[in-house]
């Protein structure tokens, strides 16, 4: 039996403001346990929150990026529940009037650049909670309050996705936008993006099924697995004649399974009410528009432009625009205007990415500059060096201050295009391979590749393959 799945996502992203949302503590990951907290973020008696205005600005930017209506007046509310990592026993969040509402995101769903529009219900600001630590030397749990008061935005989607692939594309686009507008570090391993996933299934044409929610999925690949698992679980229940009950389930990525956390009857009553310690958030129109003007070109717009004005295939454009640093580097390279755009893309996505991945570095960690990369590519395009020599040059210039020209000179990598010097090599290779000459004359023209290879070897890689090819063809004809 066929089923259609429906997915809605709640993405929580930690913002990279300098300080926390309601106090002056540093907003930094990885500090010593309980060193980045104060009486305010640990909710000590009598202390009061004061709102960090940057948090509002960051959230409004995200609202603009996701085409939301920005509410000039919004309010903050208390969400009440007991847990040891929540020192006030309430989280300051936004309930009925969030900062941003009614937006959408166009997500690329195929290689042709076709998009699908996913509705964004709302974006609101809230504070993060602390973390429980479990130590074998201690019977109970310990609490680290460093994360308390780290600013979060929660981005709630409409239930507009119908496959795990669509959900993944949505998540990746959100992540990429967060990086482009530079409001989140997006470090998945540090938990700076987390999501809650709502999944339901139904037969095509029938009304939407009952949804189940999975909490705190920390990776995008985990989200895909969680969605697939939950849809399968629900289908199995229905196929066995069962009924889906609305419930919250906990995804265990290691086990690849989810487990019942609580049923609807046991769901929390958060007793939301307006936060009396804070004023309503009022943003004037001028500021709302200024924040919109400050938005950079967003990844989807950029991708489209790369395909249209640079003529790049979707594969290249997609990878190049994945993060803003890579895209900016690429565009500076193109601006040098001394080599082919497609070659820049090939090198960036090929050898440069390979080296970065091997060493787990980003472009900013290296000595590579757009000048150096395009100069090197230009040397190849002009025939001064071979592609093979180019790889050697890249390995050098990426980690040193040397220019490609210096490396070529030092290592003697300049390609020999002088026919006089190469003719002797060609002659000796042909003399040593009479059978290849016969094969070539017999119509197996592809042996020429072998012969070029032999010549390259004798020239220690410096022979210009194009010149060699010409010489070989000429000499065979003369034989």
């Amino acid at each position: 039996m066929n089923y259609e799945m429906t997915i809605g996502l709640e993405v929580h992203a930690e913002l990279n403001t300098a300080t926390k949302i309601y106090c002056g503590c540093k907003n930094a990951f990885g500090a010593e346990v309980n060193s980045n907290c104060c009486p305010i973020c640990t909710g000590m008696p009598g202390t009061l929150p004061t709102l960090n205005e940057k948090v509002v600005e960051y959230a409004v930017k995200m609202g603009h990026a996701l085409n939301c209506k920005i509410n000039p007046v919004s309010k903050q509310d208390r969400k009440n529940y007991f847990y040891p990592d929540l020192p006030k026993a309430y989280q300051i969040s936004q309930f009925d009037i969030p900062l941003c509402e009614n937006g959408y995101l166009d997500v690329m769903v195929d290689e042709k650049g076709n998009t699908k529009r996913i509705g964004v219900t709302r974006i609101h600001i809230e504070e993060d909670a602390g973390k429980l630590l479990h130590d074998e030397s201690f019977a109970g749990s310990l609490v680290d309050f460093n994360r308390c008061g780290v600013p979060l935005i929660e981005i709630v989607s409409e239930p507009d996705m119908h496959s795990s692939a669509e959900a993944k594309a949505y998540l990746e686009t959100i992540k990429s936008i967060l990086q482009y507008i530079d409001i989140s570090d997006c470090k998945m391993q540090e938990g700076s993006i987390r999501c809650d996933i709502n999944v339901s299934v139904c037969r095509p044409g029938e009304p939407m099924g009952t949804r189940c929610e999975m909490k705190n999925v920390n990776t995008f690949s985990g989200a895909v697995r969680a969605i697939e698992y939950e849809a399968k679980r629900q289908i199995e229940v229905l196929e066995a004649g069962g009924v889906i009950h609305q419930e919250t389930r906990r995804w265990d990525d290691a086990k690849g399974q989810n487990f019942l956390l609580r049923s609807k009857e046991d769901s929390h009553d958060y007793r939301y009410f307006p936060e009396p310690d804070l004023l309503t958030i009022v943003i004037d129109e001028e500021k709302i528009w200024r924040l919109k003007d400050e938005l950079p070109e967003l990844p989807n717009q950029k991708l489209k432009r790369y395909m249209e004005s640079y003529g790049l295939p979707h594969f290249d454009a997609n990878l190049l625009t994945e993060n803003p640093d890579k895209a900016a580097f690429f565009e500076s390279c193109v601006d040098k205007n001394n080599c082919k755009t497609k070659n820049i893309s090939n090198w960036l996505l090929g050898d440069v990415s390979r080296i970065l991945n091997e060493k787990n570095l980003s472009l900013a960690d290296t000595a590579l500059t757009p000048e150096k990369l395009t100069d090197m590519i230009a040397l190849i395009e002009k025939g001064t060096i071979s592609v093979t020599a180019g790889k050697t040059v890249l390995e050098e210039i990426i980690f040193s201050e040397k220019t490609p020209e210096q490396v070529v000179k030092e290592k003697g990598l300049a390609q020999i295009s002088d026919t006089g010097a190469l003719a002797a090599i060609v002659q000796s290779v042909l003399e040593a391979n009479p059978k290849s000459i016969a094969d070539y004359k017999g119509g197996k023209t592809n042996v020429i590749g072998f012969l070029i290879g032999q010549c390259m070897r004798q020239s220690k890689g410096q022979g210009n393959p194009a010149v060699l090819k010409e010489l070989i063809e000429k000499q065979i004809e003369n034989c």
Partner: protein
Amino acid sequence: MELFEMTAASLSEKLRKKECSAVEITRSALTQIEKKEEQIGSFVTVCEERALKKAEEVDKKIAAGEQLSPLAGIPVGVKDNICTEGTLTTCSSKMLYNFVPPYNATVVDKLENADAVIIGKCNMDEFAMGSSCETSYFKKTKNPWNPDYVPGGSSGGSASCVSAGEAVLALGSDTGGSIRLPASYCGVVGLKPTYGSVSRYGLVAFASSLDQIGPLGRSVEDVANLYAVICGRDPMDATSAVREYGAFGSQISRSVKGLRIGIPKEYFGDGVDPEIKSAVMNSIDMLVKEGAETVSVSLPSTDYALSAYYIISSAEASSNLARFDGVKYGYRAEGYANLTDMYEKTRSEGFGDEVKRRIMLGTFVLSSGFYDAYYKRAKQMQQKIAQEYAEAFSQCDLILTPTSPSTAFQIGERTDDPLKMYAADICTVTVNIAGLPAISVPCGTASNGLPIGLQMIGPKFSEQLLFNAAGCFENLCGGFGVAPAMRG
């Protein structure tokens, strides 16, 4: 007259003239505490060392010829829900029996910068919930006019220490009448300032949207001078108003000439003791003779105020007090099976009955399915009451009412009847609901020998006007002072 009986203004004058030292003033108060504290029980903690150290500093400043603030060397009691760095701050609750804050409330910083001498932390109703000071976990404070009677609450210790001469001034907090009610019961002056004029940073919250710290003293000038020190914008409190404040104490005109006094009939109904009605009407007559006029005004929603107040304040309290869970500080129950059990035992054992009653009430009114019927309607009522005040103030400058429908009641008299206890706040809660300033001044004694309070209510930020009118009335009465039984 001994030092402990004098006003801050006259003590300050003496200090300036070097007729006494700050240490002598503090010692005089400490001696009075030694004599009377066992009987009255104003304090949870007496800060003898801290006080004498500060007094010595003040004497050094005097010796060095430095400029003195009007509060320099003046012993001040601080309600025990106002955080004092390094000094126990219990909110008179078992829950915080051992809590020593690592920070000062903004008002405490301001007191210290003004060289006031913090002499002790005043007993109160637990977490400021109560009208009699009887819900304190530690002790029941007695009324200095008659120790069989309550001092009023929740700032009972703040009022009693001033009335008993154990301190010259005190800070209280007022959420529904908690400064004005004990001020009236103990025969002292107490001001509930405009919401937002005094920082709440460091005040352990009861109901955040209603709480306000304010001064108590034995003269209008003293109260005005203390208010001048504690008011002002505080960036640590988002609800504190952005505005400039005057000097207050030095600007009291003590004139009511041409002042229009509004008399709301709703505050002179059957629930008000006839003796109190006549004392308040007499006071109004005295002011009229000084050139004030009276205007009849109406605050028709007053009947609903108490219900709205208990819904809003309990809702906020249920959330504010949720942090007392035994995890981080204060009381934690022993012998629990798991986390939930630890929460339940800690909160069951750490809170008293009245606090638990309000937490349950507040939790209920915020619950889904009940929010609209209770909390939302109470907030609508709040707006209506504020609007009615605004209309009244278009016809008059100040509104005068009794501070409480009765004088102090006997200890134990109302502890079993929460509704009767809540009724003590009937004349004061609307002021908090509307965020207005109001002052309570003594206006005579009843046949039981206990003081009666006159409440003057003004529009937002009209404290100077309240001091002017209260100062005029004080002159007409010939001044107030330490309770008769407490005099030296």
